[in-house]
C-alpha cells in the first residue's frame, strides 16, 4: 500500500514538470529541511543576494541557490562549488547574457581544482565527462537549472541555440591532479596547491583525440593540433579561448619527453591553425576581412591564422582515467566571452601575484 508521503512525493515530481521547473529530468522535491541544510552550508541568511543571472537578470539569493541545488540532487557540501561557479558565470567578462541567448551550442564547462575535489568526492578519473558521479553530475545540473529558472535560458524562448548539446544538462569535471605530471591548473595561474578553485569556460562538448602510436610529445600533440585545425568551430572564425584536456597516458608520454605545461601550450599554439584562404573560402563569396579575428592577423591567402590569439588562451588540464591513449579538444564560443577563474570563496586570483614566481612556465 502506498503511503501518503510517497504519493505526495510522486505528485511533486509531476508538479515540477508541469511548472517547467525542471531541466527535463525528474527533480528532487526541495523540502524545507533540505533547503535549510544548504543555506547553512552557504553561511546562512537566505535573502543574501549572491548574483544576478542574465539574460533575465533574476536574483540568485542563497535560498534560491539552495532550492536549485536540492532539486538537482546536490549534497549541502557541494554548496561552495556551485556558489563560486555562479559568481564566475555572472561576472561581466564571461558574458553569460550572450552565452545563454546565442544560436551556438555553447554551454559553460566547470573545472574544479584543489582539495575540495576530494572532500566532496568528485570524479577526475575514468569517464570524467560522463555519467556516474553524484558531485560532477549534480553540481553541473544545479548550474544548468539556475541558468534555466533564474537566468531565463528557456530553450526557444531566450535560449536560441540552434542545436544545443548534451553539455546543457551538466558539464562539470575535476582536474586529475594526483596523476598529472605537472602542477595543477590553478597553481599554474598563481594559486597555492592547498587552494581550491573553479574555472568556467563557455565551450562546445569535448572532441576526442586518439593517438595510440606516438611515444613522444610532438606525436601526441600533433594529433591534438589536427583536432584544433578545422574551420568548423567558433575559435577558427571568432578567436577567443579554448580548452585542451590531456588524458593521463598522453600526459605521461609528453612529460617523459621533458615538456612542461608551458611547452605544451606553446607548441599547440604555434602549430594549430588554418590558412586565411581556408577561412575566406578562397574568396568564393567575395572578399572577406573577418572583424572577429584580431586585427594583427595578416589577411593574405597563405597567412597562418592561429586558433586562439595566444598560448595563454589555451587552457590545459589533465583529466581522465589511467588507461587509454585519449585526450580531448574543447573549442570555445569565441571572443565574445572570456573564461573566469575564481578561488572557491569567490575571490579572484591576485593578478599581481600571478607568475611572479614563474609558475606560469610550469
Amino acid at each position, binding site marked *: 500500500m502506498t503511503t501518503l508521503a510517497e504519493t505526495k512525493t510522486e505528485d511533486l515530481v509531476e508538479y515540477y514538470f508541469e511548472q517547467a521547473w525542471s531541466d527535463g529530468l525528474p527533480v528532487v522535491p526541495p523540502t524545507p529541511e533540505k533547503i535549510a541544510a544548504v543555506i547553512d552550508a552557504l553561511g546562512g541568511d537566505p535573502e543574501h543576494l549572491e548574483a544576478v543571472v*542574465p*539574460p533575465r537578470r533574476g536574483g540568485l539569493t542563497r535560498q534560491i541557490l539552495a532550492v536549485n541545488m536540492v532539486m538537482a540532487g546536490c549534497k549541502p557540501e557541494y554548496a561552495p562549488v556551485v556558489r563560486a561557479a555562479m559568481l564566475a558565470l555572472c561576472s561581466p567578462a564571461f558574458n553569460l547574457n550572450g552565452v545563454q*541567448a546565442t544560436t551556438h551550442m555553447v554551454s559553460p564547462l566547470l573545472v574544479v581544482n584543489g582539495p575540495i575535489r576530494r572532500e566532496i568526492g568528485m570524479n577526475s578519473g575514468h569517464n570524467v565527462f560522463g555519467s556516474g558521479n553524484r558531485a560532477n553530475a549534480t553540481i553541473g545540473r544545479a548550474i544548468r537549472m539556475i541558468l534555466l529558472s533564474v537566468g531565463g535560458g528557456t530553450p526557444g*524562448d531566450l535560449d*536560441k541555440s540552434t542545436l544545443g548539446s548534451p553539455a546543457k544538462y551538466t558539464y562539470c569535471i575535476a582536474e586529475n591532479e594526483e596523476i598529472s605530471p605537472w602542477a595543477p591548473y590553478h597553481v599554474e595561474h598563481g594559486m597555492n596547491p592547498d587552494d581550491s578553485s573553479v574555472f568556467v569556460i563557455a565551450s562546445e562538448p569535448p572532441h576526442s583525440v586518439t593517438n595510440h602510436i606516438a611515444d613522444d610529445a610532438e606525436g601526441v600533440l600533433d594529433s591534438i593540433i589536427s583536432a584544433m585545425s578545422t574551420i568548423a568551430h567558433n575559435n577558427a572564425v571568432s578567436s577567443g579561448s579554448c580548452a585542451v584536456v590531456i588524458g593521463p597516458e598522453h600526459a605521461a608520454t609528453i612529460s617523459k619527453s621533458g615538456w612542461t605545461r608551458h611547452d605544451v601550450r606553446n607548441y599547440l599554439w604555434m602549430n594549430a591553425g588554418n590558412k586565411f584562404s581556408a577561412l575566406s573560402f578562397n574568396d568564393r563569396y567575395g572578399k572577406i576581412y573577418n572583424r572577429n579575428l584580431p586585427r594583427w592577423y595578416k589577411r593574405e591567402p597563405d597567412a597562418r591564422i592561429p586558433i586562439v590569439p595566444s598560448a595563454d588562451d589555451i587552457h590545459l588540464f589533465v583529466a581522465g582515467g589511467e588507461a587509454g591513449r585519449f585526450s580531448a579538444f574543447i573549442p570555445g564560443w569565441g571572443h565574445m566571452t572570456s573564461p573566469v577563474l575564481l578561488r572557491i570563496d569567490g575571490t579572484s586570483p591576485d593578478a599581481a601575484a600571478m607568475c611572479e614566481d614563474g609558475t606560469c612556465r610550469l
Partner: protein
Amino acid sequence: MHDAIRLETSGIPTAVLVTTVFLHEAKVQREALGMTAIEPVVVTHPLSTLSNEQLDERAAEALEQVVHAWGGK
C-alpha cells in the same frame, strides 16, 4: 541592448538592430536593464549569407525605424 542602454544613458541616441527572432530577447533585456522606452529596430531574420541586394532590402526595412530611434520623425 546593453551597449545601447549605456550609450542612451550617456545622452547618445542609439538604434539597436535586432532580427525578428531576437525581438523577444531584446524586450526582456530592456525590461531587465530598466529602460523600457527603448524601441529596437527590427529587420527580417537572417542577416548572414545575404546578397548585397537582399542587404539593401534589410536596410530599407530599417531606415525609417533608425531615423525614429535617433530622434527624427
